[in-house]
């Protein structure tokens, strides 16, 4: 009630002063940037292969697949929702294209278009159910996650009799499409996978959308205070459905990137990775409660994950340490987020 008057009397009440450190911390990605630099330096100094051309290409590739998903998931989280079906979606889309082309001889581009349409439809379904029913997206997408997981496994077995789809490279047109999804580009002595370029482009576009478009403004608003957003005329339903379709679309892209990289797709692809995307987004500064975060931060979160994943291999540690590290990073990130919100957030 009257605690609002407890402000220090020396301060001009009309001017809110901000500590410079808070100003810096207000950038959601600062913590992740510091951590990424630290991990990069550590593995560069302690292992010989980390900084080699082949080594760098490996962890960049690894980071790129997680990064594309993490950026889309981060946008959704800023909008105040979760998508647990995002991981399984990378498998579903790859399997669809694989089954259509290798089993039924469908044109590869048409198969990819159908897979994209299916992904977007599932995303829209998630969004409509979440908004229309008011159920937590955690539960709704947990449901779609299990449905996709079951369909992926049972469907693949039904169609191929196996738990994987192989022989993609024999499909007509595979090499032509592969240029965009599975090729490598020589850069600075590295054999850089094209997925890294996709990752950078997606991060740039997402950042632009979040910070410089009306849609971006709406994303922050629906995630921050949905009621206020509605009162000021923000189209809440359209914004959230768009975000769910975004994560599903990203799932399709990553599905294609892995499919064209190895020409094989396992029925279990992507399962168990949905939480890694969320962790990358949170490490990158997204609040679990929505309304705050950045695409660059999520991309950095994925970079941290990719570097650690491969760095542990190069350092010849038991790679089970990765999980422990991931958990530690997550807790640290959440604590930093909490501090940021206390400093820059709500007063009441």
């Amino acid at each position, binding site marked *: 009630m009257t605690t609002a008057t407890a402000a220090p009397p020396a301060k001009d009440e*009309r001017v809110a002063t901000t500590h410079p450190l808070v100003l810096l911390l207000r950038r959601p990605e600062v913590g992740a940037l510091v951590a990424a630099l630290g991990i990069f330096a550590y593995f560069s100094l302690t292992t010989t292969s980390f900084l080699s051309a082949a080594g760098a290409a490996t962890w960049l590739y690894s980071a790129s697949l997680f990064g594309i998903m993490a950026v889309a998931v981060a946008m959704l989280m800023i909008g105040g929702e979760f998508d647990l079906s995002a991981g399984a979606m990378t498998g579903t889309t790859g399997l669809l294209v694989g089954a259509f082309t290798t089993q039924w001889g469908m044109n590869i581009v048409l198969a990819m278009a159908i897979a994209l349409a299916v992904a977007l439809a599932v995303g829209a379904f998630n969004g409509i159910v979440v908004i229309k029913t008011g159920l937590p997206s955690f539960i709704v997408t947990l449901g779609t996650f299990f449905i996709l997981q079951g369909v992926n496994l049972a469907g693949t077995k039904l169609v191929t009799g196996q738990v994987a789809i192989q022989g993609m490279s024999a499909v007509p047109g595979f090499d032509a499409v592969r240029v965009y999804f599975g090729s490598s580009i020589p850069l600075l002595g590295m054999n850089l996978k094209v997925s890294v370029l996709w990752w950078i482009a997606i991060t740039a576009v997402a950042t632009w959308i979040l910070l*410089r478009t*009306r849609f971006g403004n709406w994303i922050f608003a629906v995630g921050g205070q949905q009621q206020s957003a509605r009162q000021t005329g923000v189209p809440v339903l359209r914004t959230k459905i768009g975000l769910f379709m975004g994560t599903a679309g990203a799932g399709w892209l990553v599905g294609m990137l892995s499919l064209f990289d190895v020409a094989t797709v396992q029925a279990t692809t992507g399962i168990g990775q949905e939480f890694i995307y969320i962790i990358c987004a949170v490490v990158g500064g997204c609040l679990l409660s929505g*309304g*705050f975060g950045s695409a660059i931060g999520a991309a950095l979160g994925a970079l941290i994950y990719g570097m650690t994943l491969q760095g542990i291999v190069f350092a010849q540690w038991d790679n089970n340490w990765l999980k422990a590290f991931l958990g530690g990073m997550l807790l640290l990130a959440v604590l930093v987020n909490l501090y940021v919100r206390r400093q*820059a957030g709500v007063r009441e």
Partner: protein
Amino acid sequence: MSLTTAPPILEVRGIGKSYGSIIALSDVSTSVNVGEVVCVLGDNGAGKSTFIKILAGAHDYSSGELFLYGQPKRFTSPRDALDSGIATVYQDLAVVALMPVWRNFFLGSELSTAGGPFARLRVKEMKAVTTSELQKMGIDLRDVDQPIGTLSGGERQSVAIARAVYFGAKAVILDEPTSALGVKQAGVVLRYVARARDQGLGVVFITHNPHHAYPVGDKFLLLKRGTSLGQFTKSEISIAELTGLMAGGAELEALAHELER
């Protein structure tokens, strides 16, 4: 001044509202002119919320008349009222705490280079407008980029009012803008109400605190148990009388007597 001849922005005559057999409000009359502050005072359950909802277009009225610039009018929705220049600032203010002040100011009505959700925002322009609109009202923010949650309650209230004014409000209805604030913060809002009045706005100020109402009000409408206890101009009533009437003077005296030892 020609204020007396022009029709009031908003006027109600004998207005009332019943929900089934419950009469929530009956026979209330008042008007708000350009550059005038009308304070609506009442205790809990006096009918303030019903009154506000009628003015804001959220509820239709069941008896009496409502005039907009002298013309009979029935608002069909809050949007309709807003389009007619009647803006209501509710207690929750409709702001997003973690978003910068300027983004909040333009939320839902962003300026962009073209239509559609993916057109580029005119960021510089929006920041400049926010700064100057707030400055006009005496809120001197160094940085409109700070989250609105870092502002004090009074400042946030003022930003919400400034937003309503900028987007074309002719009259603003303020729902208990000072009730959650301390003395100093309430002062910020009251000063702001006075500025809005000086800029030619009509203000309907709903409150249960006569000490907040008296300094800025031109007219005082007292509600009790869903009906009007009368309307007074400032010259007709003192703050002591106002407080007494509001609390139900006789009842209060009886209470004081009862509690005496």
